[in-house]
């Protein structure tokens, strides 16, 4: 998604001002003039000025323009759904991984993604199963990284090889 630089400029002008105002709420230290708000103040002001510069550049030179102020690159609706699918996959994992567990959830998530992009359900199923096993073997078994077991917790001993 590409925004017109006027919009980008307004966005960062507003964000910069919010950061600068927030910096004012941070306590100063009694012994020196500078406290925790010093750097946020500079960053906020700098961001607001850079946002303003972006707006001025757009007005003066005409560069950074987008017809209709917002343009969607890629394959239109299907492209938006593709991005949404990745975002949805991550959100589903955040919401369900602790309850269901990696070994049961990941195959479905991988299947969904592969099927959407490749349209081959057998390939998607194979990658779902073997991809999950490969990731689990590498991260959990070899690297000893923690992964949620969810409803398989009581079988974790049997399933650890």
């Amino acid at each position: 998604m590409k925004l017109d630089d006027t919009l980008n400029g307004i966005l960062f002008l507003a964000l910069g001002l919010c950061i600068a105002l927030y910096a004012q709420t941070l306590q100063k230290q009694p012994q020196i003039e500078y406290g925790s708000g010093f750097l946020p103040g500079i960053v906020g002001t700098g961001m607001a000025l850079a946002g303003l510069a972006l707006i001025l550049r757009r007005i003066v030179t005409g560069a950074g323009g987008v017809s209709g102020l917002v343009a969607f690159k890629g394959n239109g609706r299907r492209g938006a759904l593709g991005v949404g699918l990745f975002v949805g996959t991550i959100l589903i994992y955040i919401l369900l991984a602790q309850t269901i567990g990696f070994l049961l959830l990941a195959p479905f998530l991988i299947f969904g993604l592969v099927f959407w992009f490749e349209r081959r359900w057998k390939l998607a199923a194979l990658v779902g199963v073997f991809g999950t096993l490969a990731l689990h073997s590498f991260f959990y078994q070899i690297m000893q990284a923690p992964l949620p077991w969810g409803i398989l917790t009581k079988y974790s001993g049997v399933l650890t090889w």
Partner: protein
Amino acid sequence: MVAFESLMLLLEPSTMLVIIGCAIYGLVVGAIPGFTATMAVALLVPMTYFLDPVPALAGIVTLAAMAIFAGDIPGALLRMPGTPASAAYADESFQMARRGEAETALGTSLVASAMGGIFGALLLIFAAPALAEISLSFSSFEYFWLACLGLVAAIAASNATPAKGAISLFIGLTIGMVGLDPVFGQQRFTFGNVNLVGGLAFIPVLIGLFAVSEAFRFGASPVARPEMLPLKPAAMFKGVFGHIGRLKLPILRGGIIGSVVGAIPGAGADIAAYISYAVARRLSPNKDKFGTGTVDGIVPATAANNAAVGGALIPATVFGIPGDSLTAVIIGVLYMKGLNPGPTVFLMQPTLLYAVFIAFLIANIVLVPFGFGAIAMFRRVLSAPPGVVMALVIMACIVGAFAVENTTFAIAVMLGAGLLGYYLEGNEFPLAPVILGIVLGPILESTFLASLAKSQGAFTEFFSRPIAGTLGATTISLVVAPLVYVLIKSRRQAT
């Protein structure tokens, strides 16, 4: 003695296994169009969390050396550079491949990459300790100006407009400010959320910015890969050494340009390659052949981008100031492993540091056989369905972010950083200043306040020491000079 001990550390079977694994991984990821060396490292970082410091760091530098070269392969055979570092001469090598000279293009590119990388590695081995000795006398004033210089150079060196570069930098500084303030311990930008008190974890942010955003871009417009041009790997070194002998001076010049540009904070391997290509085009006796497909254009640029990795490691290890986004990640890993980068590491843990330097040197030496293997196997790498690759990448991102922090909040942070990276790249904001801002922000703040306390509020003290004064003047001139240039240019146009 230290070098021998370092070599012994590298020769441990488990370390060798990690290095070989990282080399193969770097070659595969680097050869996939659209993936960057930084993305490859970002995906590897969660794994290094569970490794000892030597294999972790040796693996990362090996990966970097391999990935930068591997980007040349799809550049020549598909006209799609695997990493941005290969973009400067991708058209040159593709033109050769179209004439049926893909083997010569890739063979010379491989040997020149290795030579450039070896030059950068040797410079790193000899220059870094000497610089570290000088920098032992540095105080907070010098470090403050070094951090400032890094941040200003990051904007100046980015391909974007200065306003966009500055915004990226301020975003990075803001991300770096979340959590406890490093000087006074006050909470900032936490808004009562306990998950934010410790700050936004570096690894999930990194994975989000460089890997998840790439998946989103693929989701928005999945690209079918074009058919690759024919290649006979067996004939790859035919006539190559004749070209290398003829172009030894341009290769050396590429190595020097790459090392110097790489060491400038903010300017990475891609900029080094562009500069080296431009210089070669100006100085070459065959300048009329540039643009039509000539090794004279490929060789100096590919030597420069591999040398740039070694160059970028110099300020990263000596001062803790990253040369580019890749070394910003390496600094993050150094901190993660309890090694605060800076001159004292050369005194306290020289064996470990030299092991990393030697690993980088070895990686560039073995680049020739490994790179040959990668070229021979490229058709197979390319045959992997992109949807499968991206699905596995996104799952590896999720698992990696979770594994390091052991909390689903880290995955949420990764998602947020991914969306941010997707928005920034889509709107032509550079990503490198973001990561430099995250790494340099806390250094900038703590050195500024420490210097201010030492000088009792007198700003003139910031220029009182010779090196600090020089660094300060350089930083200020980097900010002021472009403004003066614009002013003079507009006045001339008006008259």
